């Protein structure tokens, strides 16, 4: 159904969520919107997968959640990074770049 090129590289959802939450506490819809916005809609992620990831990350202690009011006044569940989450973001970001560089070296060996 989904265009395969638009699918997320495996394992990158976590780092995207961590990055999105780095400066703000957001609810799930907010996170989804930010990612779409930032990728200009090029990456389309399944909303259900986002929520599953969020809850698993909470279980691992990377994010924590609390109920609050959204801008529209409705009750929503907000997420924010924990200290552990911030550490995780650094690690995952670093390993992403390593990955990118490795792929790049294969695809464009002329670029250093």
């Amino acid at each position, binding site marked *: 159904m989904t265009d395969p090129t638009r699918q997320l590289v495996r394992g990158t959802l976590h780092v995207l969520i961590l990055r999105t939450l780095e400066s703000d*506490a957001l*609810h*799930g*819809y907010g996170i*989804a*919107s930010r990612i779409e916005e930032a990728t200009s809609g090029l990456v*389309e992620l*399944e*909303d*259900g*997968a986002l*929520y*599953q990831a*969020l*809850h*698993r990350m*909470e*279980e691992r202690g990377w994010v924590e*959640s*609390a*109920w*609050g*009011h*959204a*801008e*529209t*006044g*409705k*009750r*929503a*569940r*907000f997420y*924010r990074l924990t200290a552990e989450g911030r550490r995780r973001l650094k690690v995952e970001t670093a390993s992403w770049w390593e990955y990118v560089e490795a792929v790049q070296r294969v695809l464009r060996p002329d670029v250093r």
Partner: protein
Amino acid sequence: MSDAPGPRWPRGSGRRVLPDARRIRRDVEAEIEFHLGERIRELEALGHSPQESRAEALRRFGDLARTRAVCFESDYRIHRRKKRRELMAELVQDIRVAVRQLRRRPGFAAIAIITLALGIGANTAIFSAADHVLLRPLVNVDAERVVTLWESNPAVIDGLLEVAPGNFVEWERRAEAFTAMGLAEPYGFDLTGGDGPPAPATAWLVTAGFFDAAGVRPNPGRGFLAEEYTSGESVVVISHRLWQSRYDGDPALVGQAIELDGSEYVVVGVLPANLEYPAYRDVWAPKVYRPGEDQTRTSGYMVAVGRMRPGVEQADAQRDLDRVASAMAIDYPATNVGTGIRLMGIEEHVLGDVRTALLVLLGAVGLVLLVACANVASLMLARAMERERELGVRVALGAGRLRLLRQLGTESGTLAVLGGAAGLVVAWAGVRALVALSPTDLPRLAAIGMDGRIVAFAALITLVTALLFGLAPALHAMRAEIRQTLAATSHGSRGSRASGRFRSALVVGQIGLALILLIGAGLLGRSFLSLLDNELGFEVENRATVQVFLWDRHPTVAQRIQQAEQIAAAFSAVPGVEGVGFTSALPFHPTQIDAEAGFTIESRPPLADAQAPRAYTTIASTDYFDVMSIRLERGRLFTPADRLDAPRVAVINETLANRYFAGEDPVGERITVGAMDQPVTREIVGVVADVRPTAFDSDPRPELYVPFAQNGTGGITFVARTRTDAASFVPALRDQVQTLDPEQAIYHASTIEQLIGDTLVGRRFSLVLLGGLSVVGLLLAIVGIYGLMTFATSQRRAEIAVRMALGARGGDVTGMIVGQAMRLAVPGILIGVAGALYLTRFLQSMLYDVRPTDFATFAQIIALMALAATAAAWVPARRAARTDPMKVLRQD
């Protein structure tokens, strides 16, 4: 604030009401609902229709059900983990608070912990022993079917008698209730042929049915073959213990020969380990009857065992045996009229007297536990009352009730755990002491250890007590009107007055229980003393003794006489030895060689055997009576002239003289007796004082002494009278025997004091334990009284101050407080006396010469208890009397 957008993050350790599974499910649902709502709004804003928007939102969401499930599971795990962490944190905090509270009141904590430790410890120790000795079935023994068989002759003597082989042969032929019967003759072998002097080995010579009847099968190896019982072949079965200790468990030993008494015997089998019957024997050999032995029906010296047919009860078997006995009385009127057959279950035979003693101790321990529980309850109540105000304040300030209950529970629990741990130490020490104190023949001694179930049981009881009485006041404080609790002053609320009454009742109960224990111990103590008061008929101090068996190395009478006299002479030559005598049966000795048999008096018409006078025959040397200080009443003792070639003579004891020669002079009478010898006519030349034969409570029996020089028996116990402590001479006596004959085995090298001590171990065991338990009970009761009176005086502080301000003197106050204690002691003592009057009957079999309701004992113990109660109340009373009234009144 709550209206502002954004979440409210939980702050610090602030408590939230935690959602349960339903709540979590709802939250997940709401979260997803919110998301879909926002998405639909966004799509509608882009101009899609509501239906299109909804469909697109759902499409973009993906697998809704799976997402729901995954989110729920994650959240639920988070929730559980969090809750667990919170509980742990609270528990740690509670324990920390509890420990702080206990450290603030070290006296209270110490008393509570000691009480718990004694309660749990004493119970665990005694119960462990009782459990191992009494409550577990015999190992390797079919207790349902194996019984021991005895003769009885109520007209002559109470109790069970050993079995004459001639009777057993008839039982075996006539009885129908048994599948197998066996007979065993106690015997001793010397283990020779090893390094060093020969070692004694206890043995049983057994008849063909014995192993079958006892239900033991040698492994490795076999029992005896039928022909081995008649051929007199030299074969033996040995105990597992001997196999291990002397032959290192060598599996090749079976079939090989070992040396016993200097001859070769082939080992055909080894009995299983841990055999509880037959126990304490190392060698078994086939019994071959000596000529005429299986016709002997009047002289019992053997042990019989039978195996009942399946389905036969002991009562049925006893009826069968009664029938056999009656038939034999008809067939053998001369010997068997009045001779009965008695059956005793194997368990009763093996466990014996220990049963009563341990059951009594078990009961006593139960009482101590009750006293301990009462103390704990009382302490916890008092503690909670003191804190009633504090609790009220905390409830008023909004402390969660559950949280408060848990806090108090943790305090009680911490106390109980500390007390339980100390209790384990006490129990461990108690078991060790028990083993050290117990009679050496206490069955299964080695098996006594601590049992987890028992520890758990005792711990549970005390823990429940602690929790129950720790929490009850907390519940009370919560139910009570907070305002009322806060308004109440230290004069005491209604609750504290009710609990005061309850504590009084507990103390009354404690006094009663402690009194029962003390009276029991008092009765045992009095029995012990009256036992020791018994005259023994011989001197105890400075007498050393050894036993030897000369039969094998000195087969003829002349040789044995010579050897025994040589040994006596060698002993006499030891510096410090003042006299040496010897006998076949030394009083209080574990191996006495004497025989009970009928005799005839020449000056009277002969009677049938069954009506004939009877006596125990003992062989004695010339100097024996002098060395033992057994008093000569009339006539003369043996002299060196009473030899084999001289007229046969005998000396009798007073009991025999009084029973059969009442009002006459027995000296000069001639009697014929066949025990320990061929029937021989002897002239009575003297009468000596009675001696107690086997124990302090064994009554003197008719005894007849025969001079060694006219008998030459082989089983001889020497006694040496020494100038100083006899124990230091024992090694020298051993050396003398070894010097004369290095191959001679020595048995029971000891002192008479030691032999006598050994017979008292059982009684001392019960006495020390019951005494110890009753002292524990008394101490706990004193602590109870002291605690209550201390609390009561602090509650009455203001009242006492007013009294003193109005002119009451210190003495009046002291009297008032002590009087208050007496009002508890009197009902307590009455309850205790009533309980003791009922319970002491169970001590009956352990008492000697004291009735279970002995007035003097009761009176003394009551006085002791009254004194203890007064003393316990005295300290707080004096303290109250010294208060400065003005200071107290100003304070309130």
